């Protein structure tokens, strides 16, 4: 039990510390694919350090909610990183929150940030909040449906249980998971504010979603948000790996498999980050009102995945 708790803390810390690295790697890959010189892979760390050292500038009429939201967002993402099995499968904290609660944690972070965005009362903040909630209202149920497909196969909504079932059954092919996989990809693109739904590098008012929400943040608050964004990307990637490529995650109680699991995680994340950069490089951002169509497709695919499960696999 105590070893389990140590492992739990170690995994969460690992995710928090490595998350900016994944972001740096993705940015680097994208720069290569776009044919420009790449920033160093450690650039996100430098940004965080710089931001933490600055003085926070806050609008005159900001309420305590505004200052609280970044901490809340960071805490939620750290919690999410603790729930998802990344390298090991016995996480003592996982019974406290299952896959549905994970969706709830993401929603909690999102609602706090959207409220904080509306707190200052500039046109951009509420615009960002509105767009973010528009993206969320389709992405969230789609994500839930992806989890449902996986949990129908494993007869459990507990993430370690899902991973154990999917990784250790004989190599069975689930057609429902193929649908769910595509839907998950689309949802994770939207939830992490990447192209084609949102562009993390733009500050153009016509297109920005996530950046519009955090426009008023500076210094340590912005650093926490940026870090939480990186952590969210990391957690989503780990989640995708856990659901669709779970091979290599150390089963419960098998500590000898940990080094190999760590290596497998790094390899998969490296490939995943490159794939993300590649898809971003070949796509263009869609218009805002095409986003519901994009996410509606994801939602539909996820529901289809569930139906396919009932039709073919039940």
């Amino acid at each position: 039990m105590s070893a389990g708790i140590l492992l739990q803390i170690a995994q969460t810390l690992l995710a928090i510390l490595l998350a900016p690295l994944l972001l740096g790697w993705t940015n680097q890959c994208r720069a290569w694919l776009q044919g420009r010189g790449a920033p160093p892979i450690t650039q996100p760390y430098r940004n965080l350090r710089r931001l933490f050292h600055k003085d926070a500038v806050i609008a005159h009429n900001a309420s305590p909610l505004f200052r609280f939201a970044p901490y809340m967002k960071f805490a939620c993402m750290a919690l999410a990183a603790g729930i998802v099995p990344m390298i090991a499968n016995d996480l003592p904290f996982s019974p406290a929150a299952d896959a549905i609660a994970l969706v709830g944690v993401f929603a909690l972070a999102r609602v706090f940030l959207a409220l904080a965005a509306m707190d200052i009362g500039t046109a951009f903040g509420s615009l960002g909040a509105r767009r973010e909630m528009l993206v969320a209202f389709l992405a969230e149920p789609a994500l839930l449906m992806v989890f449902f497909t996986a949990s129908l196969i494993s007869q459990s909504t507990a993430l370690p249980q899902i991973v154990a079932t999917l990784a250790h059954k004989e190599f069975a092919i689930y057609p429902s998971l193929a649908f769910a996989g595509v839907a998950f990809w689309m949802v994770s693109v939207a939830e992490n504010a990447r192209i084609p739904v949102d562009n993390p590098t733009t500050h153009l008012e016509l297109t920005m979603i996530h950046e519009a929400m955090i426009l008023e943040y500076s210094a340590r608050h912005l650093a926490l948000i940026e870090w939480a964004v990186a952590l969210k990307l990391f957690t989503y990637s780990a989640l995708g790996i856990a659901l669709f490529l779970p091979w290599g995650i150390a089963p419960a109680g098998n500590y000898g498999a940990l080094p190999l699991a760590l290596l497998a995680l790094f390899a998969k994340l490296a490939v995943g980050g490159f794939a993300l950069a590649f898809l971003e490089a070949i796509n263009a951002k869609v218009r805002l009102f095409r986003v519901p169509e994009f996410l509606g497709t994801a939602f539909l695919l996820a529901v289809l995945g569930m139906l396919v499960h009932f039709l073919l696999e039940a």
Partner: protein
Amino acid sequence: MTLPLSIDLLMLAALFWLLLGVAGLVLAPRRPGVSKPVFLLGAAIGVLVGVTALAFLGSGPETAVLLIGLPDLPFHLRLDNLSAVFALLLGFAAAGISLYAAGYFHLGGESPPGTLGLAYHLFLASMLMVLLADDAYAFMVAWELMALSSYFLVTTDHKIPEIRQAGFLYLLMAHVGAISLLLCFGVLQGGEVGNMNGYTFGSMRQAQMTPFWSSVAFLLALFGFGAKAGLVPMHVWLPEAHPAAPSPVSALMSGIMLKTAIYGLLRVTFGLLNIQLAWWGTLTLALGLITALYGVIFAAVQSDMKRLLAWSSIENIGIILAGFGLSVIFTADGKGGLAALAMTATLYHAINHAFFKGLLFVGTGSVLHATGTRLMGGLGGLIRFMPWTAWLTLVGVLAIAGLPPLNGFVSEWLLLQAFLFTPGLHQNYLNMVIPIAAATVALAAALAAYVMVKFYGVIFLGQPRDPSLVKAREAGWLQRLGMLWLAAGCVLLGLVPALVVDEIAPAVKQLTGQVLVTQGNWLLLAPVNADRASYAPLIFFVVVLAVLGLVFFAVRRLYHGRVRRADPWDCGYPEQTARMQDSAEGFGQPIRQVFETFMRVERETPDPFERKPQYQGASLDQIWFLVYQPIARMVDWLSAQVGRIQHGRIQWYLIYSFATLIFLLVWTR
């Protein structure tokens, strides 16, 4: 000395509520301040009702006969676990709302506080009697008293024509529903002529009915109770009546009265009918899901804060009815364990909704009192002037948006689990329906978060859209206490779900014959077993707090806490005003655009040459135009036809009587 029976205590509570109302009425003209202690005592009685029900849960049914009413037709009363769960909800939620009302109505309003206090306490007492009634006669008397007293409460500000109209619509729908209920009890009675006790629920339970007549009774009950609960398409009165009433009354109506309709449906379906057919469940599930989605979409486009909450109540009723439908499907399919899971989710959500919707409605009451407007377009930034109201309302907002670790998440989690654990049902088509239904519930829950961000963000955050808002005053301490009570309910129901599930287990067992196993671990909610699904909100909450604390400490320790205040970034355009924030319409615009087919959108856009350009937009309910207006026109037409034989000349009327007499003499010879 023996302890008084729980049912006696509850009857006494109803009596005290009545007496309080009368006392308030009598004393109010001479002592205007008397309404405060009256409402405070009412709150204390609410606590008594809640505690009695809590203590009763798990024991066998108690009955009583009240010798009032018509000769030979006494009132039969009965308290069982189902009644007790709803009495629990009624008592504790009413306690918070009455506490708030003690501060709120004290400030005076349109109606004299005496009459208002009488109607208010009559309303509470009649709702309690609905829960206790054990015969159709007592039930209908209590039901009608409930409708009438709430009608007078809705029309408190009767000098405003819109409010009179809303009250009329409410009364009309209440009576259409009541007729259906009367017919339903008639069917349940079994048509036995001469059976003087046929009207008691006891004899209805004994009656053996064919599936056909059972279905008729169920459909009548669904219509009658659905009209009260706000099931689409009988929901039209709800967005009119709830905003019209004073806020504590809206809280009572939305939080508690809608639940009496759920109680009635449960009572008839699982208590009085001996069989449950799967298609009833499918029908209710479908209607419930349509209601949930329809309600939340319309909530997103409202600009009146109380109307928004009323539509959100429609959504929540839809979710409750979906859970009920699922439970019927499982019962009919012989899957008792799953039926128990769905039923637990249903009851849990009913209790949750009483607390968070009560909290949100009284919160809007404080805002309304401080600012004088219900339109969100004239609000904003109130978190700075009314911090208590704002932060307590935030609890309700997070709870109703279904976010962990508050209570709204628990019931939605349970409901989604019920969908997920569906192992092949016997009817194949149901296996297809379940995933789609689960997707709809998830969609409605996600949209609810959108609605609540809009509600909270536009009212409490941002800059004041009206300069006079700076003078908005915080609610009084009684009002804060009432809100605190309801908010504490939301937090507690969210943090210890395993205990709550254990408490309502006797009612679930009574309805479905099975209970959920909580494995005696009060920290962990695991409806089937911990390997399949589990949720421990208290651990969750502690971990979030710990991480928050650690991060805060680390950031402060390793860096610095320096803060500089400045103007918000103006994008190079210095003339930013508060009117450039999103208005309520603006925030709802994406949803309106996506779901425009469901609503009738009427826009009035200004001419480019107009000096004072005005923009107006309204998203209206299609059902009103497609269903209710044709019915109203038909009624008008019919009465015009009937009016033809009504001349006002005495000779003609004498001829009518004469002809009728002749006709009867010939016919009944």
